[in-house]
């Protein structure tokens, strides 16, 4: 997935795709799926930036 941005893939994988009720994930609503995982992404980007800033300051 070299030239494809993860965030573009996640738009589609989390909000697109056929929605069929599986056996496992019934309790995780669609909205939760998007919210939880985007929170993870943003948190990790923030951590990255913070580390870069710390490196730059050092």
């Amino acid at each position, binding site marked *: *997935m070299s030239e*494809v*941005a*993860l*965030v*573009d*893939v*996640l*738009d*589609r*994988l*989390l*909000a*697109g*795709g*056929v*929605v*069929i009720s*599986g*056996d*496992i*994930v019934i*309790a*995780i609503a*669609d909205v939760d*799926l998007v919210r*939880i*995982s*985007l*929170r*993870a*992404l*943003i*948190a*990790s*980007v*923030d951590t990255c*930036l913070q580390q870069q800033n710390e490196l730059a300051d050092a």
Partner: protein
Amino acid sequence: MVVTEQATYLYAVTGTQEIPGLPDVRGISAAPLRMVGADPYAVVSTVSLNEFGEDALRQNLENRQWLEETATAHHEVVEAVNAAGPTAPVRLCTVYRDDERGEEMLREQKSSFQATLARLAGRREWGVQVFSPARPTENQPASASDSPGRAYLEQLRSQRDERASRDHAMAARAEDVHNSMAEIATAARRYPPQDRRLTGIPDPMILNAAYLVDISAEPVLSQNIAHFQRAGLDVRLTGPWAPYSFVELETS
């Protein structure tokens, strides 16, 4: 002895059993792929409930590395299947207790899948994003007002008005892009603009949309994008994608 419970993970549904690229691709956790069902078929692999059980999944979705690896594996399988013929990608993390439960679902949804796959034939998905240049507002010359306080407030107000009118104009141009694309496409779908922290682009995204386009209309699509780019708009095209954004099944 602890027995790891296993489950069946679904990647995509397709009408063909012949997928030349499939042996070269691995699923999540490098698991081998297999096909279940009979027209439509689903491409699946075995996953562990330690990873995909409900509680585990909730935690894993919060883990950037897990999310990236899972999404990448899922996407690569979908790409391989889509290369062989019309394909309905399945939402991330669709898991069944076993193959039989997956096959049961395929039988129940057979006609919906077949209608969806027929609609996708000869069409591809393209992504279009528009970014608004975040030009810094130039300092206004000091107003003729005699009060420095008032001059300052007027300057703030005029900067704010200018920004608002520029945002308004950019939003209108993004709508032009969307409307012209929707005319070329057989279907259109908008996503929320992506967060700047995720795009890595300082300019805010003001349009994030997907279009299902007849392959025969792709030259028109390219010309349309080029037209807006020549006019100075920051329009970016991604794809072709498997038709992730256009596979809503009719509820049966």
